[in-house]
């Protein structure tokens, strides 16, 4: 019997195909950025869900610290890995969008810079997880490091903003038209469904590994038959 997350995953795949088709061929060119503006439909949902997936990791971390239940740790583990994948994609997309609009692949823009720092912090958490055998230590350390990394994101953003800020074109509500909002929402939905599948699958892997690590239960007592 297929698990529930496969329904979300399949719907997500279909929605992503539809959303990308609409973004590439149906949506009008953006007023300032022209066809390059079509990157909006991939870049912004990825950015929002990278943050949101790290929020899930944060919830998992808090859940573990409050309840000590391993399920919360598996959620933390799953969401951090998915979040790192999203964060890498986010930075690459930002770079691809930056080249035609800013003329450079990279600038020390606050959002770009803090997203990079965010990636480094969560990669650090993954490496920390690998640095111990004990499941309890791993869960506690990871939860603590996740909370600190998460809280640090807005602080980093603020500091980089003060440090150096370049003026950039932002999509203000006036430049976003009706059809653009629709296409954007389709892509957001696709992302939500796909992230559900990613996190759920990764959670099952974490659970399976934890079960394999745990000492095997005693075999059932032999039935005595007369």
């Amino acid at each position, binding site marked *: 019997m297929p698990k529930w997350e496969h329904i979300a995953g399949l719907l997500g795949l279909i929605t992503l195909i539809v959303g990308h088709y609409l973004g590439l061929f149906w949506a009008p060119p953006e007023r300032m950025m022209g066809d390059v503006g079509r990157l909006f439909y991939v870049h912004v949902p990825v950015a929002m869900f990278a943050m949101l997936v790290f929020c899930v990791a944060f919830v998992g971390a808090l859940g573990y610290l409050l309840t000590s239940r391993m399920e919360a740790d598996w959620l933390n583990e799953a969401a951090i890995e998915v979040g790192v994948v999203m964060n890498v994609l986010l930075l690459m997309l930002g770079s691809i969008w930056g080249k035609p609009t800013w003329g450079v692949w990279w600038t020390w823009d606050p959002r770009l810079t803090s997203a990079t720092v965010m990636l*480094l912090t969560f990669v650090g958490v993954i490496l920390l997880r690998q*640095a111990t055998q004990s499941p*309890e230590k791993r869960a506690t350390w990871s939860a603590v*490091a996740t909370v600190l990394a998460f809280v*640090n994101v807005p602080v980093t953003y*603020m500091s980089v903003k003060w440090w150096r800020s370049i003026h950039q074109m932002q999509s203000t509500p006036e430049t976003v038209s009706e059809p653009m909002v629709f296409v954007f929402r389709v892509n957001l939905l696709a992302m939500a469904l796909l992230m559900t599948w990613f996190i759920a699958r990764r959670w099952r892997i974490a659970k399976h590994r934890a079960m394999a690590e745990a000492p095997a239960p005693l075999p059932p007592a032999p039935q005595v038959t007369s």
Partner: protein
Amino acid sequence: MNVIRQTFEVLRKELLVEWRSPARVSGLFFFALAMLLMVAFASPTEGILRTQAGGTLWISLLLASTRSMDQSWSTEMEHGAAEGMLLWPVEPVAIYYGKALANTAILLAVTVAIFPLMVGLYDVPVRGDLSMLAAIAVMGCAALAAPGTLYGLITAQARGASVLLPLLMFPLVVPALLAASRGTMVVIEGDPMLQGSSWLSLLVAFNAIHWSLSGLFFGRVLEDG
């Protein structure tokens, strides 16, 4: 005995150990001094050093601190695991704050010793308000010590601690490094726009967050360690 008194007991013990054999302070000092020299050798022109003095100072302190934060725990763990500290007649939170204050004091001592050397070596004209500079130094050292002390305990028990501690600390202290470097630089340059105080307030906010959160989590890390 309340927590504040216990904290000062731990701090006193730490500083006493350091006073009797100042291995960490001297190690950190020479590490930071070597860093200043290495950066100078790696720079294309001498003029660059002057403009990068603030950043170089704080990078040296950051690197030195990541080499030393786990040492702050290794003495406790020589004869066993971190659980030994649970037997101390003090609250775990007092152990954390005592250690973190001691680490701040050690870093600050290194800063005080290294700063005049940097001014001389890099030919930095100091024009600014020295009390502001002192405030930034105190807050910057505290900002490195707060997460460093917590992660030091974690990585002291982990495999590959020597690379793990910097990896965890670097991205976390980016705001502090930025604020301390820029703050030091604008104050040295004379600070006509009074930017120093905004960098200082960022450091204060960073410290408030990390000193409270790390204190909150420390007991848990110690128990599960």
